Every structure is written in C-alpha cells, then in structure tokens.
C-alpha cells in the first residue's frame, strides 16, 4: 500500500515536470537540446523542455520559471531542466537506490573478456582521462549546489549522484562531498549521511580540519541513531 501511495505521488510529481520559460538572461548561456550534439545560444523567451541542458559561462546567468518553480542558474554552472523538480524525502530515499537498479546484476564468474580483436592503437584509460576536461562536471556540481540554494535539496541529492556517476573525478573533491553529505544530514537522512561521511574519510585525503569536522559529524550521527 505504501509503495502504491509513493508511486501515486511520483506520478503527481511527474505531471508537474513541465517545460520552463526563460525569464532573465545575462551573459553567455548555451543550451544543448535533447539528443543534440551542438550547443546553441540561449535566447530570451525560449521554451526549454525536460532533457535540455543549460550551461553558463563566467559572469553569466539565467533565470527560468514555470508555474511551480523559479530558478536562477548562476555563472559557470550547468543543469538539466528535468532536475528542477520538488520531490519528497520518501521519494528521495527511493531514488537513492537508482544506482543499484542501473548496475549490471551479472553472475559472479561470468566476467566476459574483452573482444580479442584489436583495431587501431590502444589508448589507455589513464591517457584518456587526461584528455577530458573536467570543467563540465564541475559546472554540473555548481548547478546541483544551486538546486540547494533554490530549496530543491532532495532533487540536488539525486542530481549529484548522477554527476558522480558520469563525472567520477568530481567525487574526489572533498569540499563538494562534504557539502552534499551535510545536505543529507540536514534532511535527517542520518544513515545515508553517515555512509557518505565514512566514505569520504576512507577514500579521500583530508586536512586535519576536515578530519575533525567529519569525525564530529560521525559522532553526532552515531548519537542520533542510538537515541532513535
């Protein structure tokens, strides 16, 4: 029954995932429409659908709105329009399982070997990593933070999880990680926040100040969980 209610709520949210109008535009703002490979200049009064990506340059910004949401994307940021939606905490909890649903549930021991045929010169993963600019991932992170600024914390968490998957180097930025762990803490998702802080502590190089902060958070959460 609870699942049914949640799905019903989801449906309502989806119903409100409408297109946005450009209200205010400043500087160099580009959009990448659904499926496109070429960025276009954003122009006033354009309508933006859900799968459109908006990207701002330095000293640029754009304000878009629809019936329910008014959102300003500040400089050096990027966001997909479909990320601009209000979702509940329960829905967020479900959405946090997205990664598990996406991953391949293959049987152990069935690790397939690569195709033995080789065409052209092999380029190692490390080489390619250096080729890619991480700028867009950082812009995406900035956009996610602005979701928080606009009161869309739950949506920001879902968005940042997606960014971490598609731009894994962004997950190595300690301040960003702590920022979004704090959001989870603020939302009262203590178990999820605890896991996140613990992962930061385990996988990233932290300054003493950061270590102390995280230990303090972990201690707070432990107490809260014990008193639950």
């Amino acid at each position: 029954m609870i699942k049914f209610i949640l799905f019903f709520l989801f449906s309502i949210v989806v119903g409100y995932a409408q297109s946005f109008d450009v209200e205010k535009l400043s500087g160099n703002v580009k959009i990448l429409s659904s499926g496109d490979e070429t960025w276009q200049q954003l122009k006033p009064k354009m309508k933006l659908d859900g799968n459109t990506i908006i990207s701002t340059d330095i000293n640029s910004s754009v304000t878009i709105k629809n019936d329910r949401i008014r959102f300003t994307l500040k400089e050096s940021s990027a966001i997909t329009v479909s990320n601009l939606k209000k979702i509940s905490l329960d829905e967020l909890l479900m959405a946090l399982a997205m990664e598990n649903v996406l991953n391949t549930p293959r049987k152990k021991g069935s690790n397939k070997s690569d195709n033995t045929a080789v065409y052209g010169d092999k380029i190692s993963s490390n080489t390619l990593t250096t080729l890619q600019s991480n700028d867009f991932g950082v812009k995406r992170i900035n956009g996610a933070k602005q979701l928080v600024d606009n009161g869309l914390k739950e949506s920001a968490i879902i968005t940042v999880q997606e960014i971490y998957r598609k731009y894994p180097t962004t997950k190595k930025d300690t301040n960003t990680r702590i920022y979004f762990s704090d959001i989870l803490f603020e939302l009262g998702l203590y178990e999820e926040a605890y896991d996140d802080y613990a992962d930061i502590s385990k996988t990233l190089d932290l300054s003493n100040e950061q270590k102390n902060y995280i230990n303090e958070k972990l201690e707070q959460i432990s107490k809260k969980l014990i008193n639950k």
Partner: protein
Amino acid sequence: MLSYFSTFAQSSFGLNGMLGISGESFTSMNSFEYNPSNYSVIKDWGFSFTYGGEFAEKLSSNLYQITTAKKFKSHFFSLRYTPGYQKEFVFRSATSTGDSTNEQINLESKYLYKELFGFGYSYKINKDVSVGFNGRYFKQDFTEEIITAIFSDTLYLVKESDVDNSDFWKFDLGLIWQPHDKLIFNFATRNLLIFKNNLENQSNNKFEIKTNKSIIIGINYNPTNNLIFNLNYESENSFLTGFTYLIPINNNKIGFAFSAFPDAHQKPFIAGINPAVIFISKYFDLSLTYIKYFSDRTTISSYSDFTENGISNILHNKYSYDKLLLTTNFKLNTIAEQRAKILDIEIENNIYPALSDKYMDTPIAKAKVLNLTNEFIEVKPLMSMNGISSNKFQSPIVSIAPNDTGDINYYLSIPEDYSKVNPEIVYADFYINTVNDDFDDEYQKPILVNSINAWDGNVHNLKYFVFRDMDFSIKYAKAILAKHKPEIDTLTDATSDFYKAKIIFNAFIEKLTYTSDPRASVEYVQYPKQTLELKGGDCDDLSVCYGSLLESIGIETALVDYKNSSTVKHVNVMFNTKLLPQQAFLITGNDTKYFIRKNELGIAEVWIPIETTSLSDFESAWILGSEKFQTEAINEFGLLKGMIEIIDVN
C-alpha cells in the same frame, strides 16, 4: 493399496478364490478362471503351487496346479499346469444277457473332464489400465461299456468299451481399470472363443462341458488400507461378494477373508462360502482356503440330472465336494520392489520451445513422490515427451526420508533442431526410479507445446531468442564489419565497440521495415535469421535481432522492458560501449545520451540505449532511445517504480 483377496462369481470361480490385483501379492497369476486379463503385479518371476484335499466319500488329496510367470517391463506371461483340475463321473448300470441264463451284466459309463494346461499374456497400457487374454486346454474322455453280441456257432455276449473323446481350447479377454487408488474395476469374457474337435458320437454331445458365453464385471473397493470389499457379477446371473481384512505385522501382513457365492447352477441361493486365512510377505504368500457348499453333496447322483444339465465348471459344480486348499506363491524378484510412488504431478507452465535453455534451469513440472520404504531413498526423475524427444531426460536426483513425501522437479531438454511452427498437445511421460533402470512408478500428463516462435511475454525470456541462430548472427555481423574494414582499422580500441555497433545497426536496418506480429493467441517473436530474411519485424523482433548481432561480436547487450509505456508494452536495446565515464566525451558531448552502469567488478561503464524501431539511422535510434530512457526510466523514476526494467541478455 489394492485388493488382496477376492472371489469371483461361481462359474468363473478359481481354485481358491484368491485374487492378487495387488502391489504385494501375485496370487492372481494362478487363476485364469477369474483373471482372464492375466493381470499381475509381480516384478520379475513368480511361482505358484496349490495342494489340497477334497472331502468326498474318501478324503483324496492332489496337487492342483503349478504356475510360473515372468514379467518383461509392461508385458506379463504365465504358464499353468493343472494336474488336479479334473472331475470324473462314473455311472453304473446292469443289464441281463437275455438268454436262458438271464445273467446280470454290470456296465459302467465314465465321463472324465480335465483341464490340462493354459497360458496367459497381459500388457500394462499405463498405470491405470491393463489388458490381456488367456488360453486354456481341456480334454473330455467319455467311455461307455456296452454289450455286443457275436454270432457264431454259439451266441457270445461280449462287454466292450465305446470310447469317445474330444479336446478344446478356450480363449478369453480381460481388462483391469483402476481409476482411483482405492477402486478397481474388472471386465472379462467367459468362453469367448472355443476351438474344439467334435465327438465322434453325437449322442455324447450332451455330456460336454457347457460353454455358454457370459461376461464378468467386478468392483474392488478398499476404504482403508486394511479392508477390501469386492462384488463380482457374472451375466449368467451368478455373483459373489465378500471382504478381506489384513493386519500389518512388521513388513508382513496377516489376515482373513470371507465370501459367499450365489450360483445360477446350484442351490440354495447362496451356494457356498469361502473363508480363508492369508499370510503375505515380501518373498512368498500363503493361503489356506476352505470351500464349503451348502447343498447336500452325496456321492450318488442322478444320471438323468447329469444328462440333462451337465457341468459348466470342472472345479465348481453341484457335484463338487468341499475342499481345503493350501496355496503358496513365491515371488523371486531379481528386480527391485517398488520403493517410491508418484502421488501427483503439477505442470508448471505450457512449453515454449524457444525457451529451451530456460527449461534446463526451471522445472516444467513438479511431482509429489512418496517413499514407500523405511529408509532414505535417492529418487531419479526422468521424463520424455512425445513429439519433442523420444529420449528420456534425467533431472536432478532427490533424497526422500523414510515414508515421507518429497517434491521432485522435472526439467526438459528440447533438441536444437526442434522447429514445429504449430502448437500441439503432447503427452509427457514422467518416471521415477530408485535402484536401477526399472521404473518404480510412471505418470502421464498432457501438456501444450507452443510454436517455436511463441513467446510468453516475459522480456527476460527474449534472451533465449537472442542466442538461437547465433552462428547465423556471427556470420552476418562479421560480414558487415568486413565490408567496413578500412573504417574500423582507424578506430581506437576504446571506441571500437561503439562504432562497430553503429556500423552494424546502420547496415542491418537498411532493408528492414516495421511490421506487427501476426494475430495469434500468444506473442510471436522472430529469430534473428527470420527477421533478416523476412525483412522486418516489431520491437521484439528488431531488438532480438540487433541484440543477437551485437552479442555475436562480443558486445554486451541488455533489453529494456518498458512494461507500461502508454499502455503498450515496448522493448528496445541498450549496449555496453566499454568506455569509462571519463571517456564518454569520445562519443558524445551530451551527457543525457548515455548512462553509467557498474559491472560486477564495480567498474563503471558507459551504456547507450538504442530505439531499434527507429529504422532511419543509428544517430536517430540513439537519440530516441536515450530520450525515452532518460525521460521514462530516470526522470519519471520508471526504473524505481518497476515500470521499466533492464534485462541483461547474458
């Protein structure tokens, strides 16, 4: 539990009334009289002997019968030698010489009836029905002393014997039907076919054994494991009814039986009774049977009555004396006794031949099997299915505790060359054995086998269509890639899978059009070869075909099941580019067109969805696929709500 004891209507009444339509006794084998179906449950060899005495004026004892029987799978054969099956009538008369001496001469008329031997055969059609026949050889010798006058110088009166005889074969059919564990019906003929030599002297015909045709109908009902009731009716208006009660003691059974037999040829109404005590063990049976007739059995009978009515049964007629008979049956079985029994079988699903690999892992039927022994047994299930494979396919062995029931799964192997396009009902034969190749039990059930192109609608099972005709897909995909060798040679290893998938898509959709399934009661899916030969298909067919071509060159593929997309189910494909997330920019600058999936080693890889029904080009199919997936699976939480599912085909 089946019937242990039964006696049939009097004129077809056997020697001692024992009937062994039983899993633990084979006494029926020695009694062709009441068992024309020659039905027996022995597993291998059987031997039977009956010795008894008749309470005539003088007690006479005799070896009545020796029977041997052998079973070969569903065939059962028996031979019976019956030295004691005979009855002789002697009538004495006196006549005078008629001469001056008027001397009295005593004359005798003897009528000897014998049944010498017989044979039987039966075939067990299935666990419920057995049919058979038997043949019996009879001999009749009639000797009449007469006075012959020899005229010479003197008149001599000479006593001579006028001998007349005939023999005949008698054949009968029978059927045993067991519609329920507790119920058995038997149907049989009596005197169905008679082949005989005529007597020389037709005046002796009146003394022949009467062979009126009749039928026997019987029912055996055992309301409990220990109690059996029986009622048998013979159409000459004789019948017999009674009961048997058995008490289990260790692994043996001891019991008693009682029956009464009204006989159309005898008086009073209840012509006699037949009490017996019985002992049944694993290796032999014993019975002590007393046959008591109620009418007076004097040693002197009326010649005129005999002449008028004759006899219809050598052993049991109104001139028969009371008898006491001891019968021993030896069950020399070199074949194991039944150790397990199938109680019921439930067919899980209709058969979809395309899902043959699935049936190697998922049972098509489940059986409830009872361990009949006091020890743990290992049950080996086997199955064959007419029209699919004549070979018996073995499923995993299951251990069952003593006297307990266990669930047994039956798996199916469908030959690779199975290609029937029309659905059909076939009979599946289920077997169990516990010791050797002889089956402990078997069961038959009908099952629907769908067309080779039928699909059960479960997208998980589309993968079985993907991997069929893989040889064809390999050749087809490699032929396409060979044509694009110069282009492929310039590719980096990282983007190789992506571009090969693109080349194959653009080549394979060139000649295809979207066509809906034929109207049918079940979903219809084409194999890759069919889709390419027919130059079209619907979303299932196109996704299966493209998935097969990609898998054939080692590109991992998943089917995306849109379970309720605008009330219409839809399937498309996503494949693994093998690119790391940080390499995604090598194929696209739009991060909504790909999705990250971690493999089982935790390594994130870039997957892209392809809408296979977009038959224009790869780019369009990718855009449509990614838009649909991004919108419905990600933005609308379709994956989380279970409305959309990613199904890895391998």
